[in-house]
């Protein structure tokens, strides 16, 4: 009798070949797809996001993502670290109407149980289930003592952990309960299950199992349950594995969940060496597009889309997300980087530009920023001596540029001219990505 929490409304005039713009209603909030959802990692980025929403009311920027390990410094940054553990059980939420608020999704981001980056933060954050914290702490301790065979050790311990979760009902229920509890208390609009980072067929099996069990568990939270998505977080190399990809596609087409989230960690299909992955990704997009158009109430999201934001939004994905990828924390692998100035998104090449390259471009344009976004129009000169202001504007410019791209896709679909996206990519520095657009 109750209507599903997620409803997809299709319109015949908003379809063009493999591209579509639909209305996606989630938990009482309506999104016009495609939508760009920035992944925010601290309260500074959250402030920028809210400012942009307040001042420019962007229609296709009505969702944001926060990783579970970033909740403390993003959503509860005003609280002292010592009170965080007790907060998890006490966080009481207001029940004010929320239809005007943006959609919030909490990404469990458990790939950091596998990858070294952020592992230490994962071990310390009180928002992650104790089983995961314990695993990560033990892993850091043991792998630190190893001189060789670290990769083998990592694969073995990671697989063992998830096999144990797969086999032990108590541990499994606790992991799902802990994760959902934090997501709900952080006011997430859709529950995202804690699934393993997929590196092998066995872990894919565990991921599917966790998706099904989490979905069943979501109904145990209350009689009026919150919708639970399916989630697949995997290595880009999985794209080459035909058997695993067909298992995923088959599961997605029959799953009861209206929303499926994909994450291909560190995927860069613009790389010359990724020709096979590009072909597989294109087939994947076609398959998803057909499922979205033919199965009632189905929508797809792509997390950490990176360079693939635009082509993924152009075909199949209702919501695409990626981090700002602009500041030093995101680029900490680059040891030479010492500038406090962020990179800047160049909407023409659709890639990031360093400060020096950006300044050169501005210099060649009579010291004016040549960008049509509203932030740049209102602030046409570069605050060269104030890196805080420079960074704030870079982030605001990034959000509006992405929103502009989503808007261009919507307009192209309405004009029945999805080829526009193809041409836009061809003019950019991401030419190789034209190969992944289904035509």
């Amino acid at each position: 009798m109750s209507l599903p929490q997620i409803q997809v409304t299709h319109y015949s005039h908003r379809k063009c070949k493999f591209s579509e713009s639909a209305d996606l209603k989630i938990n009482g909030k309506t999104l016009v797809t495609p939508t760009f959802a920035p992944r925010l990692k601290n309260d500074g980025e959250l402030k920028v996001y809210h400012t942009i929403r307040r001042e420019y009311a962007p229609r296709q920027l009505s969702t944001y993502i926060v990783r579970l390990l970033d909740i403390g410094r993003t959503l509860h940054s005003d609280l002292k670290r010592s009170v965080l553990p007790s907060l998890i059980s006490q966080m009481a939420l207001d029940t004010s109407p929320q239809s005007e608020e943006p959609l919030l999704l909490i990404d469990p981001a458990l790939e950091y149980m596998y990858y070294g980056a952020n592992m230490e933060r994962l071990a310390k954050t009180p928002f992650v289930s104790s089983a995961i914290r314990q695993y990560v702490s033990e892993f850091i301790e043991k792998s630190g003592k190893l001189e060789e065979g670290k990769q083998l050790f990592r694969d073995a311990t990671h697989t063992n952990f998830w096999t144990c979760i797969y086999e032990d009902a108590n541990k499994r229920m606790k992991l799902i309960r802990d994760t959902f509890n934090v997501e709900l208390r952080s006011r997430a609009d859709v529950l995202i299950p804690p699934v393993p980072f997929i590196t092998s067929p066995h872990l894919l099996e565990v991921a599917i199992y966790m998706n099904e069990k989490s979905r069943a568990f979501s109904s145990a939270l209350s009689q009026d349950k919150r919708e639970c998505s399916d989630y697949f977080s995997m290595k880009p190399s999985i794209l080459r594995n035909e058997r695993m990809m067909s298992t995923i596609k088959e599961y997605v087409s029959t799953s009861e969940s209206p929303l499926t989230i994909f994450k291909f960690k560190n995927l860069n299909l613009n790389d010359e060496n990724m020709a096979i992955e590009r072909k597989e990704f294109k087939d994947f997009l076609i398959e998803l597009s057909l499922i979205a158009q033919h199965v009632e109430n189905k929508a797809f999201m792509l997390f950490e889309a990176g360079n693939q934001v635009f082509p993924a939004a152009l075909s199949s994905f209702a919501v695409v997300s990626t981090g700002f990828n602009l500041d030093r924390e995101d680029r900490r692998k680059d040891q030479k980087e010492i500038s406090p100035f962020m990179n800047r998104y160049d909407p023409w090449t659709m890639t990031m530009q360093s400060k020096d390259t950006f300044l050169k471009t501005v210099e060649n344009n009579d010291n004016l920023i040549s960008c049509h976004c509203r932030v740049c129009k209102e602030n046409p000169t570069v605050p060269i001596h104030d890196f805080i202001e420079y960074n704030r504007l870079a982030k605001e410019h990034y959000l509006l540029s992405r929103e502009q791209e989503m808007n261009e896709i919507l307009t192209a679909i309405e004009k029945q001219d999805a080829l526009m996206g193809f041409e836009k990519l061809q003019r950019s520095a991401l030419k190789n990505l034209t190969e992944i657009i289904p035509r």
Partner: protein
Amino acid sequence: MPGGIFSPEEIQALKPIERENYIRSLIKNILSMNEHGVMVSEIVDATNLNRITVTKHLEFLVAIREAYKSDRGTGSIYYVNGRLIHPTDRLSITIGNKIYDFVKLENSEGQFAFIQEKEQNELRLKTIKGGIMIRCQDLVDFTIGLQKFMTIASKRAEEAKI
């Protein structure tokens, strides 16, 4: 049957309140997937749940008008209480922490207005507290009755003041 049904061990691993919610939701799902009705024994066989538990939850669903039953010989068949006629045939009003959902439903006995009372907790999750079904053709009479009752009740209140 819905996918991802919990095994007995998994059900044991749930907290009591989670167990109640899960079983009720599972039975509701089974009812809505079987419009022609199900018997207690069919649910017991498919879910491995205890017969008493299944009956208790089915009776609760009947009590809050989420389901109805018809007696056949020695057993009963349970049905989901109608299907929504149109997604727009619904209205939701909030009074204090109570939410009243008005839905127009149809089942083998005709068309009904279904009023369901829900409560919202601090996580914005809703709990169903009760419900009433009124045949659409009787709605006007029902409203007249309600107004009469309100007049009587307010008269009494005024008399009590005096």
